[in-house]
């Protein structure tokens, strides 16, 4: 019954990611897309918070959104997986349902 959660706003701007982490269960996947990719970067408060949850939740970040904003996968906190659009589709299929935190 694992759920894929998605968030698309910068965690410096909204508390979507925080609520998503609070309400998602162990075993969930969390995909950061659009402006939410800023939350996966090293040396950000959100990135630090995320790196602590990678043991019981899988964290993904959408590569094209990262690249569009001038960042490379090397700048993403360890334990966070970079996926492309095809990978996003695979995730949507793999999880029971998708819950968007908008």
């Amino acid at each position, binding site marked *: 019954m694992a*759920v894929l959660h998605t968030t698309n706003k910068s965690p410096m701007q909204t508390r979507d990611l925080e*609520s998503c982490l*609070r*309400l998602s*269960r162990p075993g969930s996947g969390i995909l950061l897309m659009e402006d939410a990719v800023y939350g996966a970067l090293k040396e950000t408060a959100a990135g630090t918070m995320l790196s602590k949850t990678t043991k019981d939740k899988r964290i993904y970040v959408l590569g094209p959104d990262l690249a569009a904003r001038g960042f490379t996968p090397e700048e993403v906190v360890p334990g966070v997986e970079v996926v492309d659009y095809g990978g996003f589709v695979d995730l949507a299929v793999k999880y029971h*349902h998708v*819950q*968007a*935190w908008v």
Partner: protein
Amino acid sequence: MSDTQDEGRGIPKVKRFMLVNRKAPYGTIYALEALEVVLIAAAFDQDVSLVFVDDGVYQIRKGQQTKDIGQKNFSPTYRALGDYDIEKLYVERESLEARGLAADDLLVPVQVLGAVELGALMDEQDVVFSF
């Protein structure tokens, strides 16, 4: 497989729909849109539950008076949800407490659940709509 058989016999399948409200009313249209969706879903006899998280808890704060902002006060409509057989209203305890509110401050009876319990309930749904 039984789902498919039921559909084959023309028995509509009841799905578990959850609407997650996370925005305050009036500043954006999300709260009103969610309310419209919940009334429509109820007309299709689905298993509908309504969740209030983050600023969404402000949607059901007592005492809303919108006359002077020129917007419709739709808060009384939450009290009509029982007539539509929508009885499952959940509020996240953490969100309520962070805003200095208690169940008494809300205009409808709700079940107050902690994040862990509420998260488990979200996972059990067939469809989750976020507003």
